[in-house]
């Protein structure tokens, strides 16, 4: 029980130890439509391995659709998405807006859902516990999800997404339903884990300041097109409310509302 304090990389010698192991993503002439409605049109996006990309935009602009296509949940109508290297099932994980935990399984078993089937027996528990400790919930392993708070549930969902040591992690507004303070805490957690593991992160959000706090690069989608592709070259951890962030936020919001 007291073995779950060490860092992930030390405790899990296989998947998670391949530390800088992000997956590069190349999106070319990507288009997608639902029936007659075109949601995305001619999207071009090159994401180098290990980059943290935030995708922002108004509701219904197609940002979640883009995420689902990259994560492999849907197949694009036109265009293509290429990856640097094989993309097996466990290499891409998605974290949803809702925790989507199995209410009939305890926290530990829920984290184990994320482990590849090749990990067996006691090793499964050990790894799940290690990851759970990483998100700060080691002592809740034997609880039912229903007794956790919203933020804790989302942390379990994060642990589940991390369990297989993904090379690409797609976040679909995972903090959207949390209160402001829990959100800030979770942002810190996501940033810390990303810095440790260096997966490629695709983070969809409608909160521009959240995007700027976390991302290396902010991509603004508007009416199915990339309206702005902005590098955020500020040192981490970023100070909330700094002048540089405010200036960038102003620029993004101007682009968003001028169109």
């Amino acid at each position, binding site marked *: 029980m007291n073995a779950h304090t060490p860092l992930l990389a030390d405790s899990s010698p296989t998947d998670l130890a391949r530390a800088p192991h992000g997956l590069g993503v190349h999106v070319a002439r990507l288009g997608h439509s639902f029936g007659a409605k075109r949601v995305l049109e001619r999207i071009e996006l090159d994401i180098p391995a290990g980059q943290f990309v935030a995708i922002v935009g108004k509701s219904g602009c197609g940002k979640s659709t883009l995420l689902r296509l990259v*994560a492999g*949940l849907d197949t694009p109508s036109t265009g293509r998405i290429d990856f640097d290297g094989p993309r097996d*099932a*466990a290499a891409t*994980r*998605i974290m*949803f807006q*809702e925790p*989507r935990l*199995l*209410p*009939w*399984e*305890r926290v530990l078993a829920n984290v184990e*859902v*994320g482990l*590849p*089937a090749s990990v067996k027996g006691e090793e499964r528990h050990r790894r799940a516990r290690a990851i759970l400790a990483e998100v700060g919930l080691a002592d809740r392993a034997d609880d*039912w*999800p*229903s*007794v956790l708070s919203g933020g804790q549930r989302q942390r379990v969902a994060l642990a*589940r997404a991390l369990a297989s040591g993904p090379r690409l992690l797609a976040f679909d507004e995972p903090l959207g339903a949390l209160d402001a303070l829990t959100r800030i805490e979770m942002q810190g957690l996501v940033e810390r884990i990303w810095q440790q593991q260096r997966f490629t992160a695709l983070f969809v959000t409608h909160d521009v300041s959240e995007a700027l706090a976390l991302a290396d690069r902010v991509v603004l989608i508007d009416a199915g097109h990339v309206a702005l592709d902005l590098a955020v070259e500020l040192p981490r951890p970023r100070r909330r409310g700094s002048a540089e962030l405010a200036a960038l936020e102003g620029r993004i919001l101007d682009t968003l509302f001028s169109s």
Partner: protein
Amino acid sequence: MSLVERGARLSAAIAGARHARPRDARRQHARPAATRLAVLEARLAGWVLPALLVVLWEYLSRIGVIAPNVLPAPSAIAQAGWAALKSGELLRNMWVSTLRAFAGLFVGGVIGLAFGIANGLSELSRRYTDTTLQMIRNVPHLALIPLVILWFGIDEEAKLFLVALGVFFPIYINTLHGVRTVDPQLIEMGRVYGMSPLTLFRRVILPGALPSIFVGLRFALGIMWLTLIVAETIAASSGLGYMAMQAREFLLVDVVVLAILIYALLGKLADVLTRWLEERCLQWHPAFQARRD
């Protein structure tokens, strides 16, 4: 009102009733006497009214307000029960009836579960079988008794057939409803996380449908006893219903009432059994956790 709606109301009522009942009576030895008394009170509360009714009934019989040929006194029924128990006749008949009831429940339940799951998962299967099943459902299964007697006589098959048919529908409908209303977001999650169809069924769909299946089981238990009693009363050569009908022939009102009381007891027993199963299988459900916190 459809069975499903009734089921939903029932489960809501069950959940509500459970909130009121303290559960951890066993763990409370160390508590002060006042608390222990409160726990005892909560446990026995349900039996106060039946006990009072029995006392009143005994009193009214003793002073002659209720004639013994209409309704014998509780003490007389207890005597009849004791006599039947000593002769072994009561236990034998109870055993025969219980066996029949659960055999029918098993056969009908398994078929209902299988159809419910199949039609919940497969659009094709539902398209081809649901209409037929809904048509059969609307025929009261007890209306088939004359036909069943013609087919099977008054042997075991007749009772088995009727009970199985009766319990099939509540289990089928509630299983179907449960499987179809499993959170699609969880199913998507399972797929994205690489669950095989079998794992997805075992870890997501079946547990998600379980609360609904239990509602179906509770309805089925009620229908199970009802069907069996009617079937045994009309056509049987053993069992509780048969015992009651024999007693009527000989004007043994006490035995008739005894049989009715035993039905009530068996019904309660089946209900306790389902509750126990529910508590074991649905530990995760917030409705079953509230009492622990």
